[in-house]
């Protein structure tokens, strides 16, 4: 295993080296740093040209410049942008974070949604739901992201912000949305007509109730989770997680999840108003603490599961951990949302919260929570625009993979043993269908980094893609090369991780090859 990792890493480094050489040659061939001076009518143009040739060592053959650049790069100096005189590491610093945030957010969203939809679509093969999803997947494959992004800006940002001025949804619209949700849900549920009608009606009713509640309590302007919503969402989480992970018949699991709900409700007040208060954690909040709190929630949930004992305490612990994590997430979300009115009223926002430009509001200030809100209002539309295509890809891929798995003999064996359908689908089918996903995720991440080029440009996010385009246009080789090397590095890393993951997930694959 270790030898395999070392081999892969060495090979990756060699690949990176060759790739950087080829790209340097290519970029050197395409750009012309003297472009502006060639057409210039300035009498001193010739002199300037000479100076710049001297400065950039343009008379030397390109490989000589490559080795100069490489020598500096490996010793930690990625060069200087000659246009602005700023060092490349300065330029990259914040750009990398911005891009990674966008790409990782889009990847996670696309995987979670795409896999869920794909699996359901596979379980309802050749149904209307399946055809509907297939058609939409094809449509998304065909959508140019720059075109979608302009529409999102128009309707997602400007439209939604206009809606927030006077957030009233007409009753007819609520009825329409609920009806559509009901129809969609009954298609996804499948089965006999009666089952579908019941599920569809329930879903429509639930959506109508939620929308009505939000309307009455002025939720759009003061989003929050009070006792009612918190109880409802936590119960929903507990039941869903239990159903998916062990089934409601496993009483210990169910009780574990319900204990987590109770614990969440008890802890809601102290956590929300004491732990997160200005005198306690708020001034010190950062992502590290958020991570620690999440881990603490997982631990507590697992302990609750263990405390319920029984022969299958591992399953209970798993159910408890997932439920507790999600419930804690809901409480966290509630805290974030409580800053919404303050955020809306800030002069930098001026009651138009969904942003279309940049990755943070200038001069906003505020504490951790406000900054968090600000980042996500900037992130939501670019993520949507970016994830559409890979969402379609994951839908199709997980559908195909699930269909393949569900036709395997061991699924038939599992059914023949008398295992119920939930266990067959979730334990024998779903888990195995995820294995091949490990091989398309790196390919997809490379695609998303490429896609970020366009998304960042449209939403003017100051990320690496923007940096690349701007400097390519300005014939500035050092920042361009830094971008290319980082992207190639990320891609190679993603590939190695995927191979290791694949080997870890699938015992049939041996890594000593």
């Amino acid at each position, binding site marked *: 295993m270790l030898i395999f990792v070392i081999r892969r890493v060495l090979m990756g480094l060699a690949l990176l080296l060759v790739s950087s050489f080829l790209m340097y040659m290519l970029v050197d061939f395409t750009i012309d740093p003297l472009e502006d001076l060639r057409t210039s009518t300035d009498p001193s143009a010739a002199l300037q040209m000479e100076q710049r040739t001297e400065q950039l060592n343009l008379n030397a053959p390109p490989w000589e410049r490559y080795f100069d650049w490489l020598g500096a790069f490996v010793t930690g100096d990625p060069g200087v942008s000659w246009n602005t005189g700023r060092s490349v590491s300065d330029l990259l610093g914040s750009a990398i974070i911005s891009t990674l945030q966008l790409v990782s957010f889009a990847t996670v969203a696309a995987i979670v949604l795409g896999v869920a939809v794909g699996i359901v679509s596979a379980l309802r093969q050749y149904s209307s739901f399946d055809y509907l999803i297939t058609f939409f997947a094809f449509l998304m494959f065909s959508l*140019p*992201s720059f075109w979608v992004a302009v529409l999102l800006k128009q309707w997602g940002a400007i439209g939604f912000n206009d809606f927030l001025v006077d957030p009233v949804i007409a009753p007819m619209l609520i009825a329409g949305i609920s009806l559509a949700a009901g129809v969609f849900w009954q298609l996804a549920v499948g089965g006999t007509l009666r089952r579908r009608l019941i599920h569809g009606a329930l879903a429509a009713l639930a959506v109508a109730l939620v929308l009505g509640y939000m309307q009455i309590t002025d939720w759009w302007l003061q989003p929050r989770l009070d006792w009612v919503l918190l109880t409802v969402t936590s119960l929903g989480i507990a039941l869903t997680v239990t159903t998916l992970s062990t089934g409601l018949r496993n009483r210990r699991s169910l009780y574990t999840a319900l204990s987590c709900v109770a614990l969440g409700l008890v802890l809601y007040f102290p956590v929300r108003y004491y732990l997160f208060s200005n005198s306690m954690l708020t001034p010190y909040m950062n992502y590290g603490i958020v991570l620690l709190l999440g881990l603490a929630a997982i631990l507590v949930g697992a302990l609750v599961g263990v405390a319920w004992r029984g022969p299958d305490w591992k399953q209970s612990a798993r159910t408890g951990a997932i439920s507790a994590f999600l419930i804690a997430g809901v409480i966290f979300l509630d805290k974030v949302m409580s800053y919404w009115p303050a955020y809306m009223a800030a002069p930098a926002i001026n009651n138009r919260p969904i942003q279309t430009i940049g990755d943070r509001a200038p001069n906003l200030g505020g504490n951790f929570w406000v900054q968090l809100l600000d980042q996500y209002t900037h992130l939501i539309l670019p993520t949507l625009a970016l994830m559409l295509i890979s969402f379609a890809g994951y839908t199709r891929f997980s559908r195909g993979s699930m269909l393949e798995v569900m036709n395997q003999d061991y699924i038939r064996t599992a059914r023949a043993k008398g295992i119920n359908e939930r266990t067959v689908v979730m334990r024998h089918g779903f888990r195995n269908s995820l294995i091949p996903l490990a091989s398309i995720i790196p390919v997809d991440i490379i695609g998303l980094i490429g896609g970020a080029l366009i998304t960042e440009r449209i939403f003017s996010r100051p990320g690496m893609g923007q940096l690349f385009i701007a400097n390519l246009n300005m014939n500035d080789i050092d920042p361009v090369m830094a971008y290319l090397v980082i992207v190639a590095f990320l891609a190679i890393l993603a590939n190695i991780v995927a191979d290791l993951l694949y080997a870890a997930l699938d015992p049939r694959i041996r890594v000593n090859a």
Partner: protein
Amino acid sequence: MSNDRKDDPFEAGETGSGSLDPAMTAAATTDRSEVVDDGPQLENAIELREVEGMSQGQIVRRRFFRHTGAMVGLVVMILIAIMAITSIGFTLGPVTIPGWWQYNHSQLNDIVNPRGGPTMQMPWSEGGFVIGQHPFGQDEIGRDIFARTMKGVQTSLVVMAVIGAVATLIGTLIGAFSGFFRGKTDTVLMRFTDLIITLPVIVIGAVLGKKLGSADPIPLALALGAISWTGLARLVRGDFLSLREREFVDAARVAGASTRRIIFKHMLPNAVGVIIVSVTLLMSSAILLETALSYLGFGITPPNVSLGQMINEYQGAFNTRPWLFWWPGLFIILIALCVNFVGDGLRDAFDPRQKKIPSPRKMARADQRAARQAARASA
């Protein structure tokens, strides 16, 4: 990097037929009482009877022509191509063939509607269906958007075809040699493929487009074709690796066929399904690639027209002149969607495991029909 990747999200098989009770399929066409005894055999017989006396090519062609989505896609695609070519005509070297549309993409006309709005009216509007002088509207300096869109469609189609051709050539050759010769050749060729895969196509495309992107789409398309063959090469390699172990290859070698003959005459025709399918999907992403590059300014530049470049030029005018934005986008989506559907149909047609499963309603109807016929026969 690991070599047996499934790069194509569609590649995983869709063998749904296994879950279906064989007797049910058979019952659609024959009397149920016979089926109970020898279901699987009979099903096989029926399946065989359906394709009796047909060559593989005929079977594939028939399956393709029965695929509704693919046929709709193909027809729409052909209509768009005909409209784009005949409406504004085209220039081929010194020869210029005029089209039936009165304007071309660069001439400045008087603005007809306020702000150059579209003159086309839908059948449900007051005046009924009217095409008018500028059906898709005009831009701020009076150019006809219909002519510009058609010109952009022509560019996109040319780019798509060239990228497809170049990528097919390179990808098939590299994949075939890599899979056939294995060993050192394989290692070298696949490491070369990995090298290109490490960077997103659009990034290399931007670097290349900076130099080659210009009014003429051909050099750009050639360059883009030269970098987008990687997925195809991997698929072809995988196919060749398994094909070369088959008996007919041994037979050909024993009969004294040269390596070249074995690769091109014996193995390539067997891999043609994989190639055609992945090339179609490649072509639909090629359209998006070209439009995206033109949007970023590294692709087709004025005076030529590309759909992506039009959207880039007009995106600021979404509120005042939405038609400038809608039409080019609509045509990009239409073309890409049609190509995708054709590709889907081709995949189904080439996949021997793929069977069309009738819906329960259709099977019930077939049962009724069979029952009626039986009743009529006994009467």
